[in-house]
């Protein structure tokens, strides 16, 4: 291990351990840094499937989050994360292989090509389905502010809710979504 990656490991591990202790800010910082490493990791391995990268980053972040009870504080974090990322990568490739064996991938569906380059950072899988389970007062603020990028004022105008109701809706909606994810959807 080089000195550089050793320091990175120590730094990430400290954030993760604080996160496991209930420090949400440290945990968010951990996930944020981790996502950049994951993106690079998957991008190197999915040169031909660039559109899968961001979905896989998100799936792996979800897996890291849901399985974080399997990380023990004395274990090298890099090995733990790497094993999860590899598992999710292989899982995705296997699913794709099965899917393509059943369906001709370029069947006469124009959508396949039409959507190829729109915003690589937007992954729709799963999250849209989770969002549908929320009540409107949580769902709409997240939809407008976080997904469509409206300002709080614009979202308030569009929904007829007050600005503070929008802010509270986003906050509580996130918590409710997190609870849905924790309970396994």
């Amino acid at each position, binding site marked *: 291990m080089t000195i550089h990656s050793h320091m990175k490991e120590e730094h990430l591990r400290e954030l993760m351990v604080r996160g496991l202790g209930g420090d949400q800010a440290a945990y968010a910082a951990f996930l*944020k840094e981790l996502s950049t490493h994951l993106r690079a990791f998957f991008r190197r391995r999915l040169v031909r499937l660039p559109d899968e990268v961001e979905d896989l980053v*998100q799936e792996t972040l979800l897996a890291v989050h849901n399985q974080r*009870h399997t990380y023990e504080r004395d274990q090298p974090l890099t090995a733990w994360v790497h094993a999860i990322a590899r598992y999710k990568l292989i899982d995705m490739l296997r699913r794709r292989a099965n899917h393509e064996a059943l369906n001709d991938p370029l069947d006469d569906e124009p959508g396949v090509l039409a959507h190829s380059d729109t915003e690589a950072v937007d992954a729709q899988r799963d999250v*849209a389905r989770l969002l549908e389970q929320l009540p409107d007062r949580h769902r709409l603020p997240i939809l407008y502010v976080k997904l469509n990028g409206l300002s709080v004022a614009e979202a308030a105008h569009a929904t007829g809710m007050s600005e503070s109701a929008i802010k509270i809706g986003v906050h509580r909606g996130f918590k409710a979504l997190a609870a849905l*994810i924790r309970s396994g959807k």
Partner: protein
Amino acid sequence: MRTDDLIAMLAAGASRVEPGASSRRLRRALVWGMPCAALLMAVFLGVRPDLREAVLLPMFWLKLLFPVSVAALSFALAQRLSRPGVRMGRLPGALGSIFIALWLFGAAALGLAAPSERGEMLLGESWNSCPFNIALLSLPLFATAMWAMKGLAPTRLSMAGAAAGLLAGAAGAAVYALHCPEMQAPFLGIWYVAGMLIPTAAGALAGPKLLRW
């Protein structure tokens, strides 16, 4: 959804996590699975009637020591295989050496015995039911261990399933030893091992389907 929003959402719901989850879950599997196996044994097979005399014999304890030590090591192995990025280390070798030690012991016993006794030492009275009874008694623990593992994060699914199966098989064999009247090492080396390998193979086959996450 943007990745940053996903992160904000995940972090917002992150509560404290207690350490030691994998060993806790697997221990809980044992706590539920073992009494069920003992109950199955007591109801369908019955404790051996001469248990009081048998506990005075060293062979009785050896017969228990073998499956118990396999169960202990496969418990540790199952724990490691339930956590991403943890190596198996020396456990497979240690497990292998328990079997080899039993086989050497059995071979020595056979070698020292009169040729006319050897058939009896190998087959005993119950060779044709022993492996299946062990497999039967392993069922409750097989179910609970698989359930425990499913809540963790195995990344090598066949291996993990096999370790859970071996744990169930070895624990089943330990319970079965309280019923079984056989007292010969060669018998253990063949039929007990066969009984443990049934759930092990089942676990290896079922792992990739049952343990996905």
